[in-house]
C-alpha cells in the first residue's frame, strides 16, 4: 500500500488557510493535509519529520516572526538538499521577491486570487497536479 503523502500548507491567516484546506479536501486525494502557521513552524517540521513524504508545500510569504522567504533562505543553507516541491502562494507581487524565490529553487510562484472562483480553481489545479502525479515511492 502506498504511503499517503503529505501536503503542507504554511499560512498564518486563519481564514485563508481554512479556504485553502476546504478546497483541497474536495479533491480526491489521499494526502494528509498539514497546516503550519509560521516560517518557524515550517522549519521545525522539516527538521523533525523530514521531507521525504512531502508531495507539495504551499508557502505563504507574509507571516509573523519568520517569513516565507526567510524560511526558504534557512532551508537553502541547511546541508541536506532535500528536494520537495514548493509552490509559493502569496498576495505579494513584488518583483524582487519573485526573483529571490526562484533563485532559492521554488517550483512555482502563484498570486492568491481574490475571488472565490479563481481561488478554488487555482488550489484545485495545484492539488491535483502535485497530489496525484507526484506519488511517493514505496
Amino acid at each position: 500500500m502506498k504511503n499517503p503523502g503529505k501536503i503542507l500548507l504554511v499560512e498564518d491567516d486563519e481564514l485563508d488557510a481554512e479556504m485553502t484546506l476546504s478546497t483541497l479536501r474536495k479533491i480526491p486525494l489521499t494526502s494528509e493535509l498539514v497546516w503550519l502557521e509560521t516560517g518557524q513552524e515550517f522549519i521545525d517540521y522539516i527538521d523533525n519529520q523530514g521531507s521525504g513524504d512531502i508531495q507539495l508545500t504551499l508557502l505563504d510569504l507574509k507571516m509573523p516572526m519568520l517569513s516565507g522567504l526567510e524560511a526558504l533562505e534557512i532551508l537553502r543553507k541547511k546541508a541536506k538538499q532535500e528536494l520537495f516541491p514548493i509552490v509559493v502562494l502569496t498576495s505579494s507581487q513584488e518583483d524582487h521577491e519573485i526573483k529571490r524565490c526562484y533563485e532559492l529553487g521554488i517550483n512555482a510562484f502563484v498570486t492568491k486570487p481574490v475571488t472565490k472562483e479563481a481561488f478554488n480553481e487555482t488550489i484545485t489545479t495545484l492539488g491535483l497536479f502535485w497530489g496525484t502525479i507526484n506519488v511517493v515511492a514505496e
Partner: protein
Amino acid sequence: MNKDFQPSEAINSKNLLYQRLTEQFITDTQGFEVSNESILFRSLFSEGEKMAKTGSYILDVNTNSLQVSPGFVMLYELDEKDLTSDRLPMAAMSKVHPEDLHELASLSVKELLKKELSSSETHTVEYRIQTELSGVKWIRRSSKWMEEEEKLLVTLMDITDFKEAETKHQEKQLLLESGETTAMMGSVIYNSKTGHSILSNGIYEILEIDPDIEITDLVELLKEKIHPEDLDLWRSKIAEIPRTTEKSTYQYRIRKADESYKWVRVNRGVYLDKFTVIATLQDITEEVEVRHTLQQTNQELEQLIYTVSHDLRAPLRHINNYAQILRESTRDKLSEDEADQLAKIIKSTYRQGTMIDELLDYFRSRNHIMAPDWIKISDVIDEIFDLFSHETKERSIKWYIDTPHVIYADNKMLGKVFLNLLSNAVKFTSKTESPMIKVVSKSSPREVMVSVVDNGAGFDSRFKNKLFSVFQRLHKQRDFEGTGIGLASVHRIITRHGGSIWAESELDKGASFFFTIPQPLTNEKSG
C-alpha cells in the same frame, strides 16, 4: 634636496674663497689710504649682503669691466676660476634656468647696447639659477643705468623663500576659490562699526557682480538686492552684530539679473572683535527647490492615501453594513457553520477598516509638524486612558503608574506613543491570569526615560529586530490581533524627538518597552 649631500670638500673650498674675497673687499685699498671708517662701512655692507642674501655688481659698458661684490659671488656660488672679466658673464649666465633665460638675456642685451634705458627707471626681472650646493634659487635682479657715469648698477637678491611662500599662498588661494565656486559660496569679513568689508571672489559670483568692480558698501548693495519680504529679518541680523557674539544662520532671497530670486543662506560665525564678524553666504536655491519638491510630493502622497483609503472604505462599509443586516434578519435561521461564516465576514471588515485607519494615521503623522512643549506625563496618560477603557472593562488589570515628571515633547505625538504602548500591554495581557502593567518615568539632566512593563504573553526575542518594522508582527492573528503598524508609528515618533526606543521580553513572562527623549537643559528655558 641636494644641500645636505655635497662633498664637504666642495663646500670648504667655496667657503674659503668667499672669506678671502670678503677680506679683500673690506681692505682693498686700490692704492689709496683706507680710513677706518671706510673699512667699517665695507664690513657692514659685507655683513648686510650675507644677511639679506644679496649681491651686486657694476658694469662699465665702455670698458666692459665688471666689479662684483662678494655677495654676488656667494649668491651664484661661483668658483675662483670664474672670476676673470671675460669668464664671469658667461659663468653667471650659464647658471640661469633655461626657461628663464630668454627674458633675462633680452634685458641684458638692451643694457649692453644702452638701448631704451633711462636713468630714472629700475628694471626688475625674476629668474631661477641652478647652483651646485643649494640647488635651485630664485633671484630678483634690479638694474639701473647710471647716465653720467655710463655704468650699469645691478643688485640681486635671493627670493627663494619668498617664492615658495608665494606658491603656497597661490595654491591655497586656488583651493579657496575653487572650493567657493564648487560650493556656490562666498566669505566676507564685515566690520559693523566702519561698514568696511573684505570679500572673497565667491561673494561677487553670488551677487552677480563683476569682480573688477570694488564693492565699497556691502550693506547698501544688499539692501538693494534683498527681497522686500526678507529685508526686516536681514536688518535685524545686521543690527544685532555688535550686541551679541552668538553664531547665527538665516536665509533670504537675493534678486538676480533676470529679476527672479535666488535663496541665500548666511552663516554668521566667528567674531574678530566686538564689531567685526566673519560670515559665509551660500546659494541654496537648489536645496530649497528640492525641499519644496519634497514637500509637494509628500502632500500629494498624503492626498493620494487619503483619497484611496476613503474610496477603499466605502465598499467595506457596504459589506459590513449588509452583512450585519443579514445577520439580524437571518437570526436563528442559519446553521452553526453558516452563522460562523457570516461572523467571519463581519470580523474581516472590521480588521480591514482598522488597517486602513492605522495606515492613514501612520502617513499623516509623518507630516505632522512637531510642536514640543513642557508637558506632564501623567496628564498625557490620563487623556488617552479612556480610549481603551472598554477593553479593560471586564478585566481587572493592576496598574502601577509612577510618572511624576515633566517632559519636553509634542503632546499629540506623545499621546499616540502611550496609547499604543498601553493598549499593546492591555492586549497582550488579555490571556494572563493576574495582568499587571507598570508605567514608570525617570528623569536625568539630559533626558527623560519611560518604561512600560507588562506580565503578558511577551514576544520571541529572536525576532526583536522586526519589532518596530512596518507591517511586521510577532504574533499570529489567532493569538492576538493586530496590523503591525502601531510600533512602527511609535518608533517614528520617538526618533523624530531625537530619542531611542527598545524592548525586552521573555515569552509568557511579559514584555518591557523603554524609550528616552532628550531634554533641553532647563537653564536655557528659565533664561
